[in-house]
């Protein structure tokens, strides 16, 4: 198979950039895309702003202050219609190249440079796919590189299809974000017990922090018994948090049930006065009865003791207790401690961090079988909508429809700016969902709360699971981690829905690497291959089919452009048209009609009239066509 070579360097985070999207585009695309990085370096002599310059062999080039690397791209990943011959072995390519494992290698000039690029990209939030291509990172020798003639930039013409190609890349990014959100969400949902341990470790950190606040403060209190009384609940809370984590660890490691047979064996080995299994059974019955009568928790203490005994080989819990006891002693007893407060604090922190990390590593290393058949999900580039086969995602028809409606509303108002989500766009989505599913219409409690018109909002206000997941997304549109924490804290079920909403809104490029590591881990290549094979036809559509979506621009852009045109349209034209074609026929007043005129896409126009004024689609189409005829189509419609 023939290959093309694209010379790059680590300048301006190019490595992090391409593996945040699994693609590379001509540099001119980046400031226009509205997603991911809005810049891309251009190396003098071998790169160009307008197009990707491809070479038939690794070229000789320099970038003194950065590490060089070359993308080796199989010709199967290239649309030959987009290749423009520049010189012998040198081509301009006017399109985005989407990566696939079998079509890409990354060539570095030294093992150290490869390692540094990898390690640095590990600390870049959106750079998730490097792990997936790890086995394709290779070394290349300078002697294998060939000198090519200098590029004559004047021969590379601006691409008149650029707006369409950028718009398609953008749509694909959000659709891919939805698919990855769905998969990440299903993993999070199905492994919530396993991920729960991470939460338990965080609870230990929190309880430790809470206690530390009080410990230092209490030093000024002279009455030691009062100090102990005040501190006791916090010390107790911390040790309970450790026991809780330990029990959860036990369940994950040894299975769910701690039955009587296990406790019998344990108590026989620990309590010499218990001589036989019936002795232990009677003893346990006595303990349970006492607990019920007096509200004690001695049975739980026995279970905790058993858990501790079994997990004794797991040093983290033993050491945590030991260090925390030493830590508290420093404050309670005036004696010279073995370790300083700072040292103990460091040791406790490192234990917790390493335990969390080891647990998550273990999780990533296990393979995962997706329970959704992605084949039942279809995406229409022109309508910018997904359609799901009924029952596809394990919901009933009503919920499936709600889920699909929300996804499509989000795709319609998907994020297209740097930085945090724009509140107006989130409100638009909330408004759209309210108009369709709430008796209050746009004025849902959620909408009022977001608008700061009411002080209190409860998740219980959401009518069902789909809407609870939607609210979770609305509260956390910028960070998957925050969304995840929210869903765990509020115990929202079927959380894959919220992850799907987030993915559709933010797009694949913005997804944090912390949430894709299970997918891109080498042990999950089956899942990766499955997602890749599902997405392949859509990549081919973007690269080769190029459906003409250019008229279907972002709602905000359409509004701005149409508003500008409307300003120049004589008001009497609008009034005349309204009087003869709209008044007494549709439930719109003149102001509402003028607003609707800004919607220059047929579908948006129809949707809006259906949602707001209950105009049937066939009637709104008639009206839409009449408007097109009456007003200058070149001015208002484009």
């Amino acid at each position, binding site marked *: 198979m023939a290959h093309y070579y694209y010379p790059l360097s680590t300048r301006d*985070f190019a490595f*992090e950039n391409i593996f945040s999207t699994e693609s590379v585009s001509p540099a001119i695309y980046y400031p226009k895309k509205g997603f*991911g*990085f*809005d*810049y891309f370096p251009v190396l003098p002599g071998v790169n160009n702003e307008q197009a990707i310059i491809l070479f038939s062999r690794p070229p000789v080039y320099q970038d003194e*202050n950065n590490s060089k690397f070359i993308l080796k791209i199989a010709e199967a990943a290239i649309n030959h219609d987009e290749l423009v011959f520049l010189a012998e072995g040198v081509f301009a390519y006017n399109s985005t190249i989407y990566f696939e494992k079998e079509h890409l290698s990354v060539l570095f000039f030294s093992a*150290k440079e490869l*390692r*540094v690029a990898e*390690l*640095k990209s590990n*600390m*870049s*939030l*959106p*750079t998730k796919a490097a792990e997936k291509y790890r086995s394709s990172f290779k070394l290349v020798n300078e002697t294998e590189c060939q000198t090519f003639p200098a590029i004559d930039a004047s021969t590379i013409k601006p691409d008149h299809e650029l707006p369409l190609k950028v718009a398609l890349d953008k749509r694909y990014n959000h659709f891919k974000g939805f698919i990855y959100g769905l998969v990440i969400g299903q993993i999070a949902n199905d492994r919530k017990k396993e991920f729960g341990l991470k939460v338990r470790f965080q609870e230990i*950190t*929190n309880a*430790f*922090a*809470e206690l*530390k*606040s009080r*410990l*230092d*403060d209490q*030093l*000024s209190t002279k009455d030691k018994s009062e100090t102990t009384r005040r501190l006791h609940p916090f010390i107790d809370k911390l040790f309970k948090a450790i026991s809780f984590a330990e029990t959860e660890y036990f369940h994950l490691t040894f299975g769910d049930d701690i039955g009587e047979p296990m406790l019998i064996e344990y108590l026989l080995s620990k309590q010499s006065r218990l001589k036989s299994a019936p002795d232990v059974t009677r003893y346990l019955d006595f303990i349970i009865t006492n607990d019920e009568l007096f509200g004690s928790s001695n049975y739980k203490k026995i279970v905790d003791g058993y858990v501790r005994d079994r997990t004794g080989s797991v040093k983290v819990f033993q050491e945590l207790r030991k260090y925390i006891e030493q830590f508290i002693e420093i*404050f309670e007893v005036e004696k010279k401690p073995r370790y300083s*407060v700072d040292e103990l*604090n*460091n040791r406790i*922190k*490192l234990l917790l*961090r390493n335990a969390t*990390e080891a647990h998550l590593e273990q999780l990533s290393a296990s393979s995962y079988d997706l329970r959704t058949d992605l084949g039942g999900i279809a995406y229409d580039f022109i309508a910018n909508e997904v359609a799901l086969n009924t029952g596809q995602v394990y919901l009933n028809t009503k919920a499936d429809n709600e889920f699909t409606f929300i996804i499509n509303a989000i795709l319609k108002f998907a994020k297209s700016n*740097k*930085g*945090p*989500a*724009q*509140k107006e766009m989130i409100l638009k989505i909330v408004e759209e969902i309210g108009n369709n599913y709430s008796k209050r219409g746009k004025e849902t409690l959620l909408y009022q709360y977001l608008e*700061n018109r009411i*002080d*209190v*909002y409860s*998740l219980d206000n959401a009518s069902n699971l789909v809407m609870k997941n939607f609210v979770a997304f609305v*509260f956390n549109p*910028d*960070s*998957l*981690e*925050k969304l995840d*924490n*929210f869903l765990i804290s509020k115990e929202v079920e079927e959380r894959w829905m919220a992850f799907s909403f987030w993915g559709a809104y933010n797009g694949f490029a913005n997804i*944090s*690497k*912390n949430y894709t*590591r299970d997918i891109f881990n080498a042990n999950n290549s089956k899942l990766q291959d499955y997602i890749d094979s599902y997405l392949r036809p859509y990549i081919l559509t973007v690269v080769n089919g190029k459906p003409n979506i250019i008229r279907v621009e972002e709602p905000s852009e359409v509004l701005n452009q149409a508003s500008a045109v409307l300003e120049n349209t004589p008001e009497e034209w609008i009034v005349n048209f309204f009087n003869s074609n709209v008044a007494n026929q549709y439930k719109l007043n003149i102001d509402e009609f003028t607003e609707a005129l800004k919607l220059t896409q047929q579908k948006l126009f129809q949707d809006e009239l259906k949602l707001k004024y209950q105009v049937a689609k066939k009637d709104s189409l008639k009206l839409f066509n009449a408007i097109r005829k009456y007003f200058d189509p070149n001015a208002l419609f484009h």
Partner: protein
Amino acid sequence: MPREKWLIDPSELDEFQRKIRGLSINESYVIKGCAGSGKTLLALYRALDIHINSIAEDEDDPASFTVVVYTKALKGFLRSGITELAIPIHQIIHFQKWDCDAVDYIIVDEAQDFTENEIKELSDASIKSIMLYGDSEQQLYKKKRNEKTSAMEKTLTIEQIAAQLSLPQFELLKNYRLPSTIAALAAHVGADKALESKCVKIGLEKPRLKKFGDWKKELDYIINEIHTRNYTDVAILVPFADRSKGPQNNFHRNIQDVNAYLDEKKFAHEYKTSDFGKKGLEIDFESNLPKLLTYHASKGLQFETVFIPFCDYPGHDRWFIDKYQTPLYVGLTRSYRNLYITHSDRVTPFFDGLSPSKYQ
């Protein structure tokens, strides 16, 4: 994997930040940056670059480096980042405990707080390069006692440090942390009226200004809002550490009373009073509990969400206005996303003339 707040998002960096991130680890230089310019994170990532290059070179014999800081709060903050980024934790040192050993690389944060001789000692101890980060505007003392010799010595501005060590100086002029929506309100209180124009972030929404029946209702609202939104990076800022501080009418506007009320409501939180720190403990940035602090104690720190309750007259009387303009300004500028201001009486005179367009 580090939590999201400790991972950089290169897609958010501008050209100038990228240029500074792109400097070689073997170059010595001085970075001057205004409040919120992200110089502490740049220092942290410089440490990471050194660590990465060093282990890629020779995992068994990595280069030596030390990050030296001057304030304990900053050390706590950086330690949290260093732990999450898996950089060896003992390489961040408070200057008091620095042993003057020569190392390959030295990174100094808050360089403006060190004396002339201390800077020289640090420079002499670096074998390959030294990187210093700071802001002359945030210099605490013109003269201070040398931590090692106890002699009174003058401190240096960032410009003077660059000149003394003959190092190139780069300046971060923009505020990357503070959203302009918050800056617009904070500028009304603070002296820097151009603050908004320095901010790069537009901001999700305007600060919220809310009135309640009494101070407890303000705190109830804060508790409820933290629960409802599940905020995990929060500060609640009050003017005083305890009742003995400030005038009598500042009852309840202190850590002591607010802490007691939050405990009564069984609302988990951390707090820090002025007496805090006898054993050297600092705020724990690995915890995701709300942190109850004084305005003063929040200096140099950043939070996703900041609540500032009790912003009302007569609490904010003449005495308060005279003494607390800068501390309140510090508090108002700690958030990188959400700011809530509450009051239960006539709103603070600090907001006299504030346009309603600056808040919601």
